[in-house]
């Protein structure tokens, strides 16, 4: 299904169209389930998260346009955040990640509007430009929900060093991605 077609189903879902919701589920659930499985590595937990995700989608479909994300990014981000939140229930001390994709008011900002799919293809190349280990830290934060403290322990560096590394890496990454 094309991004436009997915957007169409989200828009219809926002009006309470159950059939559109079903079509949206059919078109997107396999990707979102794959993401939840990857993060959680547990089938029953991933199924539980997938249910939570689509309940959120149903209730927040009317806010989709306000957040400035492309439709699959919106859906995958909800799935990733929900899965990470569940993963962190086994851990502690991190904030929930639910709020940003549900922000209700105002139009998307100018930068979001020009983001295109081609940016994604650049990501791999830009990761490769980072110093060794830095890209892995970003990946672990995104796909395993690791905190600065957990990353510092995993890479065996002081917490502040990890924080500095990662922030610099984000700047380099963005510089490369917008080049």
């Amino acid at each position, binding site marked *: 299904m094309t991004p436009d077609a997915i957007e169409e189903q989200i828009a219809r879902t926002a009006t309470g169209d159950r059939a559109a919701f079903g079509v949206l589920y059919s078109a997107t659930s*396999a990707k979102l389930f794959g993401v939840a499985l990857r993060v959680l590595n547990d089938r029953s937990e991933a199924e539980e998260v997938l249910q939570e995700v*689509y309940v959120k989608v149903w209730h927040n479909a009317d806010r989709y346009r306000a957040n400035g994300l492309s439709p699959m990014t919106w859906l995958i981000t909800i799935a990733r955040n929900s899965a990470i939140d569940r993963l962190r229930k086994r851990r502690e001390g*991190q904030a929930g990640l639910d709020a940003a994709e549900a922000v209700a008011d105002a139009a998307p*900002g100018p930068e979001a509007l020009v983001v295109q799919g081609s940016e994604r293809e650049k990501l791999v190349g830009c990761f490769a430009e980072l110093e060794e280990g830095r890209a892995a830290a970003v990946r672990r934060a995104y796909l395993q929900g690791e905190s600065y403290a957990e990353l510092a322990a995993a890479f065996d560096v002081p917490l502040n060093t990890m924080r500095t590394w990662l922030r610099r890496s984000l*700047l380099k990454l963005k510089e490369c991605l917008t080049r």
Partner: protein
Amino acid sequence: MTDGRQPYDEDDRILAGEYALGLLTPEEATRFEARLVQEPELRALYAAWAEDFVGMTDGIAEVTPPPNLLSRIEARIFGAAAKPSLMQRLGLGWVSGSLAAAAVAVVIGLNAGLFDTGPSAPADPAYVAQIAAEDGSLIVQAAYDADNGELYLRRDVGGAASGRALELWLIAGDNAPVSLGVLPETQAGSLTIPEGLRAQLAGGVLAISDEPPGGSPTGVATGAVLAIGPVSPT
């Protein structure tokens, strides 16, 4: 850092990235979210990172969720009471109700591998169907072998109530449902499709009703329609 902020302030750019990764402390994240509501530029920075980072999921393979998951989601959202029953929908018209279900059905049955435990399921079925109850309480996979006119059936979930039988019906176009016979009591089995009906499988809908032992005595469904599923070419 409270005023004179530029739209693409470097610190905010980093902050938005940290937020998108989930690296902020709960207090930092709450503060960021409060700003997010107020500042479109910050939302744009967050959105840009979200688009960038989602690229990390590009290599993650799709995995089809279990067939009853949508029913479970719908039950959570709409509640069991809010759902029209199959009987109600079919009362409004067999075909329209069935086709609405067909439009939203996740076609799981397209994989011939699903039938690997069947009696002698076709390796290359002409048609397949997943005949499923809305609440996932009954799920039957069907695969049609055009070479011998056999419809192979595998009951994955649920079964006949005690002292009752499950009867399979074919609904083709505007025609009244035609019985294809009573489902085998075994988990997997097959029914021979009468020659006159074989051409009607394409584009048809299969339905399963609750009937007395031996099937409906009248030739039309007498019990509740438990499950329906569209027939799809492979």
